[in-house]
């Protein structure tokens, strides 16, 4: 999503004209650490999916995966995983 310059905002003010576009606002760049799942250990118990405060753990019907567009890197998933399948790795540029 291209962010507007101030001149484009004079006309509207803080108003969003299209509905349902919050998904376009990616908030994952707050992250310092990224969770990574080791699928050889994962039992698909869904704890990480349940506990993620940002609903950034997704389930594709088969396995869990992290949506890095929204994951804030809080580490809750890694702490809750009963088999220690998730490690927090420092985000690289």
């Amino acid at each position, binding site marked *: 999503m291209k*962010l507007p310059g*101030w*001149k484009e905002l*004079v006309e509207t003010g*803080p*108003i*969003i004209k299209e509905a349902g576009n919050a998904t376009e606002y990616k908030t994952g760049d707050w992250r310092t650490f990224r969770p990574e799942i080791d699928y050889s250990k994962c039992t698909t118990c869904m704890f990480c999916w349940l506990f993620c405060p940002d609903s950034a753990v997704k389930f594709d019907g088969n396995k869990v995966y992290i949506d890095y567009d929204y994951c804030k890197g809080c580490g809750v998933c890694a702490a809750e995983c009963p088999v220690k399948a998730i490690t927090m790795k420092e985000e690289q540029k």
Partner: protein
Amino acid sequence: MKVKGRKIAIEGNEAAALALKQVNPDVVAAYPITPSTEVVQKFSEYVANGEVTTEFVPVESEHSAMSACIGASAAGARVATSTASQGLALMWEMLYIASSMRLPIVMTVANRALSAPINIHGDHSDAMGARDAGWIQIFSENVQEIYDNIFQAFRIAEHPDVRLPVMVGYDGFITSHSEEILELLEDEEVKRFIGEYKPKFSLLDINNPITMGPLALFDSYFEFKVAQAYAIENSLPIIKKVGKEFGDLTGRYYDVIEKYYTDDADYIVVAMSSTCGTARVVVDELREKGEKVGLLKIRVFRPFPLEDVVDALKNAKVVGVLDRSMVPGSFAGPLYHEITSGMYHLEKRPVFQPYVYGLGGRDITTEHIKGVFEELKEIEKAGKPKGLKYIGVRE
């Protein structure tokens, strides 16, 4: 075409209520507070008697009053309210939301001191507390101006290029409770002048759904604030245009400042609101004696009409700036800071002397203002200002 209106004798607050009645806003949400109580009291009487079709929302606090105004305005209604002092202070948080969401709410403020100690009388501390909230601030010298400014406020606020809330101030008890002669506009003229309000965005427009006031973090908040700042700066020419149109209708022309004998004046006093009436008497008297004195009245304080002010003051020798609010910890009041920093870049500029006066309704008399002009002459001889002076304070 200039129309001659009927004349009545009326108090400032009642004139404000009467103007609001003639506007007949869609929604008024208000909580009464001294010295602006009568505005709400009178207006609710109009509502009860069926003289307006306004939806009146009697809330339990000023914070709620402004919240309800914001909600109604976001829904697309023409909205007004009224407050003063602590009430305005209690609205503080919501004032920012109203202006940032670009909602054209009109609010009358009977300017009054802030506690402590408790004081119900007039000064500008409340308005100056709300100074940075992004509202347009217009100050009225007398009862006629309260009435006239309210109609102009709706036009300015609702102008498609402005869409910002407007505060119409007048001095608590001094103007709010004094009875003066008021030249009326007929209801039809008011209707024609303010026109029908067609909001650009409305939450009730179900065919064009919108979200108002969403989250904007470090990646976009700044841009929104700059856009908002641009909108208020940009309202200056519109305020002038509306003031001229109002003049064409009534013969009473309004500009963002009022120059009174400033063109050739060596000594100028700058003030806002009712004090300008007092100063004008002194200027008349001294002019008769051949003294080159003048008065600069600041009618619009936000956006600050810097260019006009610079133009009016640049050739003076000494300027006394009269602030009616207390800024503990600073060396002068807000009006002084605004004017002096705005003129700092000029090579040739007057010497400026800061005054604070009239706190908590303390009288400012013609004698005081004569004293100020005397002092400005002394300052010219000394070549430098004296530091902040309090007018009429016991030592």
